[in-house]
């Protein structure tokens, strides 16, 4: 009973997955603004980007714990596992300040994106 339902679930899960694999070909890559997380602090903690155009942050987590890059104003939630690197894609931003944090260590992991 349970195994057959899991089979059915996984079959259902395959449909959107396969649709998205088709879309995978048009992915984009490239170097972004390097930001490092160490001792639950971002370096640099103030990140300057050009306003009104997309930008990319390449976040390297040098800590032993995973972290979630979280910002409601940037509309980003991205988990970066420990000793790993993650791409944080930023949408075109109107000029202004956009605070972000590491959700799992918010006491110290704070930063701001400045679009200008």
């Amino acid at each position, binding site marked *: 009973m349970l195994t057959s339902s899991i089979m059915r679930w996984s079959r259902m899960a395959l449909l959107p997955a396969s649709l998205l694999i088709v879309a995978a070909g048009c992915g984009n890559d490239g170097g972004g603004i390097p930001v490092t997380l160490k001792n639950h602090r971002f370096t640099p903690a103030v990140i300057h980007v050009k306003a009104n155009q*997309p930008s990319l942050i390449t976040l390297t987590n040098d800590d032993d714990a*995973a972290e979630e890059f979280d910002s*409601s104003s940037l509309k980003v939630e991205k*988990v970066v596992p420990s000793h790993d690197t993650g791409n944080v894609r930023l949408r075109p931003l109107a000029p202004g300040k956009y605070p972000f944090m590491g959700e*799992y260590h918010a006491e110290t992991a704070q930063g701001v994106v400045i679009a200008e």
Partner: protein
Amino acid sequence: MLAALIIVFREVIEAGLIVGIVLAATKGVPHRGRWVAYGVVAGLLGACLVAAFAGQIANLFSGSGQEVFNASILALAVVMLTWHNVWMAGHGREMARQLRGVGAAVSAGEQSLMALAVVVGVAVLREGSEVVLFLYGIASQGGTTGMGMLSGGALGLAAGAALSALMYFGLVAIPPGKLFSVTSGLITLLAAGMASQAVLFLQNAGYVNVLMRNLWDTSWILPDGGEGVRALIGKMLHTLVGYSAAPDGAQLLAYLATVLAIVGLMRWERSRRRSGHAVPKPA
């Protein structure tokens, strides 16, 4: 310890509210507890897998694997919620009239339960994997702070479960005649919010690049993230009805299209049943 409590509470609430709605929406359907339990267990197992392979998942799709994965499982949940609502539109009234003994209705009901179990599984998987990663990070640090954080996590779990239970009991206190319309409405908005969230993930993955300008910004009244009580309320509304403090055109379009699609399909199913095979009225 307080930080751990808050983080776990926030994640548990997000999954718990969805489980609460599903349980309220299936009140009176046989075997619903078993299916919801399957969903929770599968979600927890999935959460551990996703947490364990977080790095590998992230590296797919040119580093956007996490976003694509989240968008896919949200899309799956939207389809399942739609299926359930359309099924309810056809059978809800019969069930309210205590005709659930009819064999066909029960087996169709079981399919609808399976759909909702998938939704529960997806919710538990998404929020659970974050909790697992967070707690694993703490546990690996060890020591007394680790123990304090873990007990904070346990308290957060209990508090989140209690608040979700409160919402469930609030919902099922609604008179049975009205409960189905309330839960159908809630499920419609839940699905619309998930669709909008899926679009957001596709934007962050770089696959959707249109209509990205924010239409308005109400974060000064009710932020949908961050710290504090108002942010928590905003986040709960985000989970329940897809509230976004500053939605862009693509997010709003996905939201409205999902609402229209679900309402339209429900109407179509209702009229199909009315004209096709008339349901005998109970004496």
